[in-house]
C-alpha cells in the first residue's frame, strides 16, 4: 500500500511544513531558533478547539480566529521576550525562547488540564474517497488543500508585496535594509505574526486530524518541524515546505515498515544526518555570518 502511505505521509508532511515555515522565516531574519514556536502551534490548536466547543463556531471561522489570535501572540512574544535581547548574545535570546515555551505550555496545562481533548463529532464531516487501491479522506484533502493555499499565499506575500520585499531584504542584510528606509522592527513583527498564524492553522488541522489537543502537543510537533526546517535548509521558505513533506513521508514510511515504536526518532535521526552530511540542508544558502 505504497500509495496509501504516500498520501498519509504527504498529509502529515504538509502540516510539518506549515509549522516549519515559522522557524525558517524567523531564523532567516534574526538568526533565532524560536523554540516557543511549537507552543504557538499548541495555542492555535486550543483557540480553534475552544471556538468550536465553547462558542459553537463553524470550524473554518474557528481556524481564522485561531490564526488571528496566534498572529497577535507571536508579535507579543517577540516584543516582550526577544526584542529587549536583540543586542545581547544569541544564546540569551535562545534561553528566553525556551522560557516562553515552558511558560506557554504550563499556562495551557493550568487552563485546560492535563488530558487531551477532542473535537465534537461532525465538526468536519469526514468521508473516504477511493483513488484506485488507496483512499483519501475529506479531512486529508482539507489539510492538503489548505496547506497548499497558505503556502502559495505566503510565496505571493514574500515575492510580490512591498512588505515581502522588505522581509527578503532584511533577511539578506538588515543594516542595509534600514538604510533603504525599511522599519526593521516592523518587518520582524510582521514575520513573527505571519509565521505564528501558519503554525496556528497547523495546530487546528492537527487537532482535527488526530482528534486530540493537549498542552504538550507543541513540544514534539515543534521539534519535528524544526528538524524539517533544517532538512530543507534553515532560512529557506521553499526548503521548509519541502523539508516538511520529506519528513512526513519518511515518518509514515518508517511506521509502515514496522518501525512504529521509533516513530518520533525518525525525524531526529534525519536531523542528525543532515547536520553531519549537509548542514545547509536541501535548499539552504551558505551560512553568512551577520555582523
Amino acid at each position: 500500500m505504497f500509495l496509501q502511505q504516500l498520501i498519509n505521509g504527504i498529509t502529515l508532511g504538509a502540516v510539518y511544513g506549515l509549522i516549519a515555515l515559522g522557524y525558517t522565516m524567523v531564523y532567516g531574519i534574526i538568526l533565532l531558533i524560536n523554540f516557543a514556536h511549537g507552543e504557538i502551534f499548541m495555542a492555535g490548536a486550543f483557540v480553534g478547539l475552544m471556538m468550536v466547543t465553547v462558542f459553537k463556531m463553524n470550524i473554518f471561522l474557528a481556524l481564522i480566529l485561531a490564526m488571528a489570535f496566534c498572529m497577535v501572540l507571536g508579535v507579543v512574544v517577540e516584543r516582550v521576550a526577544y526584542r529587549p535581547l536583540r543586542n545581547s548574545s544569541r544564546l540569551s535570546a535562545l534561553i528566553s525562547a525556551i522560557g516562553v515555551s515552558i511558560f506557554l505550555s504550563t499556562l495551557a496545562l493550568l487552563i485546560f488540564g492535563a488530558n487531551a481533548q477532542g473535537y465534537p463529532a461532525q465538526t468536519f464531516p469526514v468521508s473516504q474517497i477511493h483513488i484506485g487501491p488507496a483512499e483519501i479522506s475529506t479531512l486529508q484533502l482539507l489539510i492538503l488543500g489548505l496547506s497548499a493555499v497558505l503556502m502559495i499565499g505566503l510565496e505571493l506575500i514574500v515575492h510580490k508585496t512591498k512588505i515581502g520585499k522588505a522581509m527578503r531584504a532584511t533577511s539578506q542584510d538588515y543594516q542595509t535594509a534600514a538604510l533603504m528606509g525599511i522599519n526593521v522592527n516592523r518587518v520582524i513583527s510582521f514575520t513573527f505574526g505571519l509565521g505564528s498564524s501558519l503554525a496556528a492553522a497547523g495546530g487546528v488541522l492537527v487537532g482535527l486530524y488526530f482528534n486530540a489537543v493537549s498542552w504538550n502537543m507543541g513540544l514534539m510537533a515543534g521539534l519535528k518541524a524544526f528538524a524539517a526546517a533544517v532538512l530543507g535548509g534553515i532560512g529557506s521558505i521553499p526548503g521548509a515546505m519541502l523539508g516538511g513533506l520529506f519528513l512526513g513521508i519518511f515518518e509514515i514510511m518508517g511506521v509502515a515498515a514496522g518501525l512504529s515504536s521509533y516513530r518520533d526518532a525518525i525525524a531526529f535521526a534525519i536531523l542528525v544526518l543532515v547536520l553531519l552530511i549537509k548542514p545547509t540542508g536541501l535548499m539552504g544558502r551558505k551560512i553568512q555570518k551577520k555582523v
Partner: protein
Amino acid sequence: MLKVENISVNYGAINALKDVSCHIEEGEIVALIGANGAGKTTILNTISSLVQAASGRIVFNGCDITKMPPHDVVKMGISQVPEGRRVFPEMSVMENLELGAYARSDREGVREDMTSVFKRFPRLEERKKQYAKTLSGGEQQMLAMGRALMARPKLMLMDEPSMGLAPILVEEIFNIITEINQTGTTILLVEQNAHMALSIAHRAYVLETGEIVLHGDADELAANPEVRKAYLGE
C-alpha cells in the same frame, strides 16, 4: 544643510569618535579623508543612525536627527551608499533599485527616477533581471549608487566608492559622483583614495584616530605639505 556638533561615539571601551564637528552646505561635495580605522565610516553611520552617538547632536535642515531611527533619517532625505556596496545579493537589479525607493509613495516619480538611473547606468538596465550577486564589482557599485539615488536624496553619503575597483572604473565612478552633484544632490564622500577625493570635492576634513585634525578647501588641503606627505604619498 547638515551640522554635526561635538559627536562622540564609543564601541565598548574604544572611543571611535571624539568630539567631532563638521558641516555640509547645500550643493557641496565634502570629502572625509583619513587612514583606515580613523572613524570615517563611523561618522556616516552615526548620521544614518545605524550607530548612536554617546554625546553631541546632528542637525539636518534645522531638524535634530540624532535619535531618529535609521528608516526615518532616510525619509528626511539622507541616503547612504555603504562601504563594500552591500547590494542585496539574492535580489534582482530591479528589486534592489525598488528597495532604494522603499520610503517613497509617489509611484510616478519613482518610475521617472528608475528611467533616469537606467540612463545614467545603461549596464544596469541590461542586467535588470539578474541577481545582484552576479554583477561585477564596478556594476555593484553602480547599483549601490543607483539604489541610493532612487530615494531622491537631498544628501548622499558615500562610503569608499572606489574600493576594490580598477583605476579606469574609479575614474568613471568619480565622474558620475560629480554629475550627481551637479544635478543638485549634496554629497559627503568618505575616501581612502585622498587624491581622487580632493580632486572633485569642494571642501574636506582630515580625520585621525577619531578626531578632526584639519579642514579646509580641497585645493588648499591638496597643497598642504602635511596632507601631501600623509595621504597623497609624497
